[in-house]
């Protein structure tokens, strides 16, 4: 019985499993993705959109399934499973690239000096044991001196010199130093002691405030040695076209302050044009106690009161 005719008819009904495209489809089996790069046929697109989309999708899925069935399979209780190859499409990274580590102090120095860092082997050859041993760590080479049963002692050593303890202390000190440097590098990487800077600024602000918080707003305060000028204080000058008379008086006042004895002719010292300087006369008569005491003395009981005061 010849069934080829039936098969041919059947095959005509079914679409081909071979997808023919102008530009071959881009299949990434690892991601189970098909990309159709062909331009859209405008006529069929506008004629019937649904049919067009369906046929395009069908072609893509057909191509993907064809390539899936070509893959090697592995049997499992659920039936054969295709083994997907690693994906070929390069996907962009979801997260930004990690920032490069801030260089340590040594790295900076080495870069400035052009020192090439060589990788140090972790293992070193031990001549006595005839094997490779760790440079440090458990049974490390760096503990050799501490562990050996006999040690040379320098001639000028103390009586209680313990070479093992000495070596151990030196090693522990190296470890501590490295740890300290590591912490310092970490602190440096965090960016310039932000907290300390802030505290410094705070103190400066407080100091500036306290300097202008005296009765004279800091004008007549004693200046300390090396005291800095207040920042942010605007200089203020007298106007140039000020009356020269005022300026002269200010200058004369300054002069009298400068010289210990007053340089300025005494005009306003009381007394005026009289021959007797009243103020001076009062001072002389009251023996420097002022006119009020003179008035009291004029009264009869002035002296007695004073005496009583002294008795008590």
């Amino acid at each position, binding site marked *: 019985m010849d069934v080829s005719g039936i098969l041919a008819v059947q095959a005509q009904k079914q679409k081909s499993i071979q997808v023919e495209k102008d530009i071959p489809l881009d299949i990434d089996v690892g991601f189970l993705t098909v990309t159709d790069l062909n331009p859209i046929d405008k006529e069929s697109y506008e004629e019937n959109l649904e049919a067009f989309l369906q046929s395009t999708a069908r072609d893509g899925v057909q191509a993907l399934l064809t390539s899936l069935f070509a893959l090697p399979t592995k049997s499992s209780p659920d039936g054969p499973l295709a083994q997907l190859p690693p994906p070929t499409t390069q996907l962009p990274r979801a997260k930004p690239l990690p920032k490069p580590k801030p260089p340590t102090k040594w790295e900076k120095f080495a870069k400035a000096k052009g020192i090439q860092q060589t990788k140090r082997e972790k293992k070193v050859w031990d001549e006595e044991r005839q094997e490779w041993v760790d440079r440090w760590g458990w049974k490390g080479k760096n503990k050799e001196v501490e562990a050996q049963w006999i040690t040379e002692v320098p001639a000028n050593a103390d009586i209680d010199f313990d070479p093992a303890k000495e070596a151990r202390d030196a090693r522990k000190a190296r470890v501590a130093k490295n740890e300290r440097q590591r912490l310092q590098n970490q602190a440096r990487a965090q960016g310039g002691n932000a907290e300390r800077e802030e505290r410094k600024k705070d103190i400066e602000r407080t100091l500036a405030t306290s300097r202008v918080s005296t009765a004279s707003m800091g004008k007549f305060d004693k200046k300390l040695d090396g005291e800095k000028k207040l920042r942010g204080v605007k*200089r203020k*000058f*007298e*106007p*140039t*076209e*000020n009356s*020269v*008379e005022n*300026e*002269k008086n200010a*200058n*004369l006042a*300054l*002069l009298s302050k*400068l*010289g210990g004895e007053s*340089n*300025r002719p005494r005009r306003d010292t009381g007394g005026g044009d009289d021959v007797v300087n009243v103020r001076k006369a009062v001072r002389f008569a009251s023996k420097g106690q002022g006119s009020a005491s003179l008035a009291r003395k004029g009264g009869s009981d002035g002296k007695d009161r004073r005496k009583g005061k002294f008795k008590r």
Partner: protein
Amino acid sequence: MRPLTEDESKAVFSKLANYIGKNLIHLIDRPDEPYCFRLQKDRVYYVSESSMRLGISVARPNLVSIGTCFGKFSKSGKFKLHITSLDHLAQYAKYKIWIKPNGEMPFLYGNHVLKAHLGRITEDTPEHQGVVVYSMNDVPLGFGVTSRATVDTKKLDPTAIIVFHQADVGEYLRDEDTLF
């Protein structure tokens, strides 16, 4: 151009008082015409009120000089007297020194005054006192600071320095461009 601040005035006055002492009042309190001190750039000018008022209308970059330049403030805030102030200093000088004709030229070239050149000196001049230097015929030549008190100068040898040079009229030629 602006008036001096109090600190600046203090610096100027204490410098001037070193030479003319209490006579400084006569500079500030003048009977003829009111005068004042003005600061322009870092120079201190001694100006009559009328010229000061005229000078107000000149813009600061355009104002080269006004009145008499008395000196300048250094960057560190010290005041330095210039030879241009000599006219006023010589007028009111408290302590004077006269130098012999053979000592004039060395002084005018900027050297210190030696004892050999000393003609006359005010009695009881103290040590480190600002003095005005005159020639023997009373022409002011400059000013300086005494190195010794008058009484101590007697013992000195002729080559010893008596007055440290500070300014002399030779600077009118030597420092012509920076003086005013």
